[in-house]
């Protein structure tokens, strides 16, 4: 099966029902995507599939054939959101951070607070109470 992974074509030999999350972490070695609950509630495994933020623990590989997938590693080491999360202490334990950032990238520049809160409602954070995450995403 061929997908585009972080901008490059990638051929994978995997079971069609394998979870995208497991394929990314185990086959592709992209461990920045995390598993928190395995049932689409916590959002720690959020990646972009053709630009949309999805929980990769809920996606079987058969559904992403030919799709373009972006993980936290695909944003590189100097993404403005990563920098803003650093500067505003948007990451405490950091386990939810990749998923938070992958959801946040879909919001575009300078989103309003209500829009951020709605978009991130599927990304759980147990450390920050979310305030520092809002500060990071709203940072110009």
């Amino acid at each position, binding site marked *: 099966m061929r997908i585009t992974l972080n901008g490059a074509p990638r051929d994978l030999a995997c079971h069609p029902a394998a979870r995208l999350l497991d394929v990314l*972490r185990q086959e592709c070695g*992209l*461990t*920045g*995507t*995390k*598993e*928190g*609950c*395995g*049932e689409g*509630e*916590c959002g*720690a495994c959020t990646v972009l599939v053709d630009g949309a933020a999805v929980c990769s623990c809920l996606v079987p590989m058969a559904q992403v054939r030919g799709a373009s997938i972006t*993980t*936290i*590693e695909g*944003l*590189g*080491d100097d*993404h403005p*959101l*990563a*920098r803003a*999360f*650093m*500067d*505003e*202490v*948007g*990451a*405490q*334990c*950091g*386990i*939810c*951070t*990749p998923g938070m*950032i992958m959801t946040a990238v879909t919001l575009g520049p300078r989103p309003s607070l209500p829009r*951020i*809160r*709605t978009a*991130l*409602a*599927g*990304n*759980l*954070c*147990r*450390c*920050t*109470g*979310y*305030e*520092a995450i809002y*500060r990071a995403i709203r940072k110009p």
Partner: protein
Amino acid sequence: MAVPESPTPNSHSPAVGRSVSRKDGLGKATGAARYADDLTFPGMLHGRTIRSTIACGTISGIRRDFDPGGFTVVDWRDIPGRNVVALLTEDQPCLVEREVRHQAEPVLLLAHESREALLGAAVHIDYLPGTPLFDPEQSPRSFKDILIEKGSVEAGFSKAHLVVEGTYRTGHQEHVYIEPNGVIAVPEDGGIAVHGSIQCPYYVHKALVTLLGDAVTQVRVVQTETGGGFGGKEEYPSMLAGHAALLALKARRPVKIVYDRVEDMAATTKRHPAIVRHRTAVDRDGRLLAMEIEVILDAGAYATLSPVVLSRGAIHAAGPYRCPNTRISARAMFTNTPPNGAFRGFGAPQTEFAVEVHMDRIAEALDLDPARLRDRNALRPGDSTATGQVLGQDCSARQVLRTALRKSGYRRKRKAFAGTGRGIGLSLYYHGSGFTGSGELKLGSRAAVELTATGVRILASSTEIGQGTRTMHAQIVADALGIPYEQVEVAQPDTGVVPDSGPTVASRTCMVVGGILERAARELRERLGNLPPEEYFRRHGPVRVTGEYEQPGWIRWDEVAYRGDAYATYGWGCDVAEVELDRDTWEVRPRRLTVVADVGKAIHPALSIGQIEGGTAQGVGYALLEQVTMRDGVMANAQLTNYLIPTTLDMPAVDVVLLENPYPGGPSGAKGLGELPMDGPAPALVNALRHLGLDLRSIPALPEAIMEAACGSP
């Protein structure tokens, strides 16, 4: 609130008091940080735990319905040392031998190369079931009894203008660190190394040495990046590490065990449910004359940390108030449920919930404003607590109260909200910093600083679990040495490398371990003379200075009589909660929380505010959302689909105000901070509901409970 600006760092500006860049910020924001499940080792197997499915009874047989090829199987007979999880009381087996005391108790361990084969293996356990005990009030067995007495409550009650009584209940709470428990045990050099998501590496080390006995020549415990702890990775990792180590020793290969969410929630520790009874005498003006308090904790089936959780709960049970006559009796009771354990606040959120809701009921009975009642009774410097500890100038109860009233506009809103769908309530609270009484002396913690080719490295077993340990320790050491923050690195906690700095618990990592590091760094500075560390290293080679805990000379504590200086200092907090109630669905929407916290000194203002915002969110969940439903002695809603923690849409705006009334014994005046914000939100929210006319005395205050309080049972 806005995070204070970080000025551009230079070699001369002090790091303490500035929001410097987190040491671990980049790795966490780019996904490069490596957590336990991100690690693999050559030849690694996966491990699985087979658990009991009854709450009480004995095992009569175990049948394995799978092809044993490729499997490593471990039961209690494979334990080379002693079959206990060594902590306070050695009552809990690492693997069940015969007697089952709770559901989800570990019985058998399996390992296999393939996760699929592992999950497919069927094991049947036959039991002779017993009669389980689930009600702590009916339990004949207590793990610990505590009595704290001051003055004469009888004398106090004889002078009462009014006596107010009440019973308050709090439920279990699950930690929901977003990274479940996980470890990897790796055989090495005649011994074993365990890498994992761990709060207290030396607790795990002690447990492994006891469990493995002479079968290993050395044990090493290494903390990987840890995705949240909150107390939930204080004791259970000792059990989990033992399991992985037993499998790895038998298989002679590395073994990884990572729990899924369901197993983590069903099997590991939670916050103790509590029942707290108050009987209080007050005079005409609302001054407290006598407080009689009974605390019952549901400990579960083994002692774990329950005796010390009970201790902290009991000491905080009378709240931050002056009362000449106090009697607090507290017990932690056995039940046939998975053991409860450490969770941020450690017994205090339960008892402070009770006393703070009770204070509002006293105010109501006297027709007095709750804020006025608190102001009248709040502890002042020179007053004594329930244990007889005389407080110094670092007592800030009235400052936090008055600041919170002003900042939130409490008085104006209290009037304006009357008769609307909105309510406003408050809580006043405190939290002892560090281990209780002589606990720190017994720990005898050590931490070190050493020279490197580029600067200085910190060696401490304090773990970074999100709260900012690495960053805050590096700030303290940088300033004590007079070098830039960037020149200080922090060693990964590895018991083969770092000394035992005590556990990362009890709001002690900054105040206590930070204090040890500050002294060690000052001593190192003396040694360096005028040379920069890297230059001294180049000329003279390695130098290491190890600091040890020194107890302040004034601390007196009698742990039998429970009298004296329970804590070196306290953090103080006041929360004002504003809520809106939907009188059709009975849902509560918190609108704003104002949190004023005296932390002594904010070493890193943004991290300090982050601790308060995060702890407040856990408190909001505790108050309004988080219900553990127990069925046959095990959590029936062990998934994030029906155990709900606050999302972005559940959290109100949180206004944080930091006060800095220093504790002279802490680094730059810092007090404990991490647990403090857990104590306040639940009573403040329930008191805001009381302002709406709802008499609630237990949490979580789910819509069903609020509806019942308003409309009676259907």
